[in-house]
């Protein structure tokens, strides 16, 4: 398994550090409320980071479902905008996490 998955709220400074970014893969994706879905490189450094941020472990399927639900909510919100507002940025698109 190349990646692990979790949800966690980005608290800001030092939620992830330069050193951690060099030690393992990390990408954040739309989640519920202030929480994001995080795709984390599966090594000891990634495990330590999940523990540090009190990440709630998810399966890949669970993580993807959260991302998809959030994107669909954003699509609904986008579709409800006036046309001139929609012209300012693209409609959110479905996204498959790693």
């Amino acid at each position: 398994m190349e990646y692990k998955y979790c949800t966690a709220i980005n608290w800001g400074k030092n939620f992830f550090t330069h050193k951690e970014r060099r030690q393992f893969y990390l990408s954040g994706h739309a989640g519920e409320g202030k929480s994001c879905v995080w795709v984390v490189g599966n090594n000891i450094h990634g495990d330590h980071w999940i523990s540090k941020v009190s990440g709630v472990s998810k399966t890949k399927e669970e993580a993807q479902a959260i991302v998809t639900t959030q994107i669909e909510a954003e699509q609904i919100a986008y579709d409800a905008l006036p046309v001139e507002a929609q012209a300012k940025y693209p409609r959110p698109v479905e996204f498959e996490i790693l």
Partner: protein
Amino acid sequence: MATYKEIKGQTVSSQASDPSSAADTGLLYYNTASGTFKVVAPGVGAWSSGGGMNGSRYGVMGAGTVTAGLYMGGTHQPTDSTKNTSETYNGTSWSSAPAMPGNLRNGGSWGVQTSAVAVGGSTSPGETPLGGTAYEFDGSSWSSGGSLITARRGNTGAGASSSAGVTWGGGDPGDYTNTESYNGTSFTEAGDLNTARRNTAGNGTQTDAIAAGGDPGSMDNVELWNGTSWSETTVLNTGRGFGGPSGGMGSSTAAIVVSGNPNNVEEWDGTSWTETSDLATTRGSGHAVGYATTSTGMYFGGSPYTYATYTEEWSKPAYSIETVTTS
């Protein structure tokens, strides 16, 4: 098998402490204190999380550095309202700062935390009216300055202070090549871009800047500004639009373009573009700052909604000390 001395012309040296200069990059040595072989490797850039903005922003503008930053205006999500607010960054957190004289988003901006300009863009949630008046910040308050000769949105800016800047591109209607130079009082027409566009990544000074990518059509064109004219140079590996201006930091000889669509990061060394570390939370239409440097900087705001308050800080050390391991 060839020996290290046969390859390098010297033996592996023993050193009591690690070298402290990028000039030693490539050096392999034995550290007698740790009892390990080490190598001085080229520095590798990476992004870390920074303090969250107090207001979520899309199409936000900015200035300054990672330890003394400034954002202004932008579109608040999800209310889709254009803002006049600004905040300052101290390397750890964002704090409220005075409001601009008017609402503004997707405009050009430049300068430092105590001497900055925002100009162009749009003043309302719709695409018009366009923002033609420069708003200047002196570190404690905003004032109105000179007006663009050609009002526009999606323009990008570069400059060291509120009295020395340049802005280019943008549009509405269409896309512009126009470049205008600012002296703190008025704008003057300057050399046009070779390729009309808006929402370029760019940064630099009034006499040394870079414009990369942009809209429409996720362009890969890159042009360098020498204070008088633009010249085409090596294109991006991946063409991209940013949904807003200024997804970049640096100058004509060392720059980074950040995120956008697609959302990888590329680094410019004055000759070629190289893929480098991506943001953890990729997005477009945020703002990157890192005046005249690519060793430190930050990217804040942008979309989608979830990330609209996020800040990520860029750091690229000149070199790093790596322990040699076998596996």
